[in-house]
């Protein structure tokens, strides 16, 4: 097929639609410099492998069962589907948040397309269609593999299940999760539209990044919480013990869709046992009771499904209406009168005083602060780290509640809240410094720096301590005062601060680049590094929480732990200074090895020859 001929025959609206779709993938989902095909292939591989892994992990209990009964399976599958649906909503919302700025017409659209003889209405509709195609394709891609694998694995040992039943289960699962994904996409699009409508263009520009980051935190927190709470929430709902809370309700709506379309298939499957087994006694009673319990839920499923069928078109209509209204005219070149508020000016002066001893330290401090708060990839990294800490905080509070107990009886999880928030933040920050905010602008730093990154790095770390250690600790202080009382909460926060300082210096010990100024080189072994880091953080946080709980019981131990932490901070700083005595050249333009080299193909080919 001749692509030029195809383009020549296309209508303007289709051409503009294709342009917007390409831009969504090229500029906003993937780095502007990356090869689209390679990046898309990596993205698809990631989605598929994660889907296979998660589905297999969830269904191990069914795959390992020698005799699987339909009644208990129908009930336990509810919490699995709850997980799939909540993940679909959260991940689709997250993907939509990643292209937040591309979800409306931009001044560059007006600059490029406004001069062509294409009506503004066509451009607006094409942008809207591109956004919806992106949302739909993403929801389909995300859910395609689990929609097939989960019903297959679920029913592998259900001997009475027939092929048509499995197909129906696949259809039910696919319908519910794809609808849930579209719901997640539409909610973000509608939220953006409503915010823009209420705040106006200038107001929206002012709050947009904060709202986007808050929504990223909410979506990631929901995604991380879902596996931990799915069973409790679903069992409570089945037992009608507590009414479902608001964030859980949309998930239950789409669960209702699945159960009305195909849920009865498993519950009504006949029991077929292996030869020489008889179906009597406890297993039969258990199966009968579970089937009866499931049947009793069916009217509630229908009610939920009705809400799902209603909610999706409603939210989508709201998204479309606000989009069309907000983009009824092509946007003009954005110029904002960004005057500095008194508070910001005061804070800036304070920060200038904090770093005035050295100009490069000042440069590092301010550039870090500006990058973390304004550059989208960096905001996202920090938002994900905040979400990880927030998830632990919510789980810890849900387990123990906010009661003041005697110190030795306090759960360790409550003492671990600080470290479980600070450790992801500082690890996330260590990763964030390797990501250049705008690669093409790095030349400004390369031309201006005077050959010694050490003072600049001091400023970078100082900004991290203020933004990612002191600020979260101060935010959490009221909660800790409520849990431990003021004196212990204050000491606990000081411990947290010292631990964060030691961790930050420790993570930068081997770092020899120019923060935010060098090209990005991916981590070499993420499959090993990320799980190992997660386990280390959990072990360290809970280990330290146990030590802290023990130490805070007497004044001597409290002082002892404080002294030990201060000594650790000092030691790491001394080690840092010692390793930086010798100056090493900074490579601003380091490039990752090509994919063929990463796979070791060159070596294999050479060995083969």
């Amino acid at each position: 097929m001749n692509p030029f001929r195809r383009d020549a025959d296309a209508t303007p609206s289709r051409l503009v639609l294709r342009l917007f779709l390409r831009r969504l993938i090229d500029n906003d989902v993937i780095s502007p410099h990356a090869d689209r095909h390679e990046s898309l292939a990596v993205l698809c591989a990631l989605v598929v492998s994660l889907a296979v892994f998660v589905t297999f992990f969830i269904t191990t209990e069914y795959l390992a069962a020698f005799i699987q009964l339909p009644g208990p399976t129908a009930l336990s599958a509810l919490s699995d589907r709850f997980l799939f649906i909540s993940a679909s909503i959260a991940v689709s919302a997250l993907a939509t948040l990643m292209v937040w700025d591309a979800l409306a017409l931009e001044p560059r659209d007006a600059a490029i397309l406004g001069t062509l003889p294409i009506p503004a209405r066509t451009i607006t509709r094409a942008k809207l269609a591109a956004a919806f195609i992106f949302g739909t394709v993403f929801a389909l891609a995300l859910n395609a593999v689990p929609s097939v694998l989960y019903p297959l694995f679920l029913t592998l040992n259900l001997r009475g299940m027939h092929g048509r039943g499995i197909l129906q289960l696949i259809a039910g699962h696919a319908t519910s999760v794809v609808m849930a994904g579209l719901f997640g996409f539409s909610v973000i699009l509608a939220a953006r539209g409503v915010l823009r409508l209420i705040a106006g263009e200038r107001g929206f520009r002012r709050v947009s990044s904060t709202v986007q980051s808050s929504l990223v935190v909410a979506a990631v927190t929901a995604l991380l919480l879902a596996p931990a709470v799915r069973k409790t929430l679903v069992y409570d709902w089945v037992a009608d013990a507590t009414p479902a809370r608001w964030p859980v309700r949309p998930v239950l709506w789409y669960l209702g869709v699945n159960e009305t379309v195909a849920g009865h298939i498993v519950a009504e499957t006949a029991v077929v046992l292996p030869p020489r087994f008889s179906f009597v006694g406890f297993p039969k009673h258990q199966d009968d009771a579970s089937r009866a319990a499931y049947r009793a839920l069916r009217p509630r499923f229908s009610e939920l499904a009705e809400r799902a069928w209603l909610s999706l078109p409603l939210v989508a209509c709201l998204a479309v209406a606000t989009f069309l209204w907000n983009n009824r005219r092509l946007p003009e070149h954005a110029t904002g009168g960004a005057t500095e508020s008194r508070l910001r000016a005061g804070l800036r002066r304070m920060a200038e005083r904090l770093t005035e001893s050295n100009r490069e330290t000042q440069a590092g401090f301010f550039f870090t602060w500006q990058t973390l708060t304004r550059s989208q990839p960096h905001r996202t990294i920090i938002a994900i780290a905040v979400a990880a800490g927030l998830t632990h905080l919510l789980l810890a509070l849900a387990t123990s509640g906010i009661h003041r107990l005697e110190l030795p009886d306090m759960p360790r999880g409550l003492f671990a809240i600080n470290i479980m928030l600070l450790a992801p933040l500082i690890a996330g920050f260590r990763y964030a410094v390797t990501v250049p905010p705008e690669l093409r602008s790095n030349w400004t730093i390369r031309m201006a720096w005077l050959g010694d990154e050490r003072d600049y790095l001091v400023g970078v770390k100082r900004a991290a301590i203020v933004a990612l250690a002191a600020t979260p600790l101060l935010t959490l202080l009221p909660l800790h005062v409520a849990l431990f009382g003021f004196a212990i909460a204050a000491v606990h926060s000081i411990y947290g601060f010292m631990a964060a300082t030691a961790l930050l210096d420790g993570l930068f010990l081997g770092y020899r680049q120019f923060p935010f100024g060098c090209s990005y080189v991916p981590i070499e072994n993420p499959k090993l590094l990320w799980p190992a880091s997660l386990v280390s953080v959990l072990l360290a946080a809970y280990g330290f929480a146990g030590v802290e709980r023990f130490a805070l019981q007497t004044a001597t131990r409290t002082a002892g732990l404080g002294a030990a932490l201060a000594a650790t901070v000092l030691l790491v700083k001394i080690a840092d200074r010692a390793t930086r005595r010798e100056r090493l050249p900074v490579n601003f333009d380091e490039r990752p090895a090509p994919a063929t080299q990463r796979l070791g193909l060159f070596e294999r080919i050479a060995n083969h020859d």
Partner: protein
Amino acid sequence: MQARLEARQLSKYYSATPAIRDVSFTLEPGAILGLLGPNGSGKSTTVSLLTGLREPSAGQIWFDGRNIAEGLVEYQARVGYVPEEAHLYTFLSAREHLELIGRLRRLPARLLTHKISTLLDLLGLTSAADQQISGYSKGMKQKVLLIAALLHDPDLLILDEPESGLDLTAGLVLRHLIPILAARGKTILYSSHVLDHVERLCADVVVLHHGRIVAEGPVSQLRAMTQENASLEDVIAQLVTTVDPARTAGEIAEVSGLNA
């Protein structure tokens, strides 16, 4: 007089493709050299080698009698650079960007604040100084680049298409500024397509074509090589143009007039 900047047989290859070959020239303190050539002639590559942002495949650059490869950072500390494309950190405001540059160059706080405010004011950017650069026009970005290049009082100014996007007033200011800086002993390399400006500003020019120097020397000498009273534009056209401009223009008009 010792040359301030000396390019010695510079070559740069991208994979196996040569971008420039054996480019040599010298610049003395207070000199303004025009770097000319059509698109793809190797001007930008030459400029990027002279800034130290890229390494030459062969050849050397000497500054004040020292190979810059032996002290790249010290060299860059004395260079002011205005690139052809205005890539700036768009999430910063002009003031924040200039503060970043000035702090990295260790300029004293008071001097930096004074220079930034005054230069922003002189170039008419004060009202937009605290807006993010993402909302700036090309000309406004160009002014920010120019201020950033001048902040640390550099000895060598490398200007790659500095007038691109500038309004009439700012363009005139720049054209008056360059001779003043040269009179103060600054060395200036001026790469531009606007031959009229080059002719007025530069005593000497280097003409690149297909990565090689095809002509160099004083403008008057180049003129003498061709017919009498020829402008610099005529000289360059004679040196590097391989097509008949009038014929090409006619053909463009013909093609653009085609209807379905």
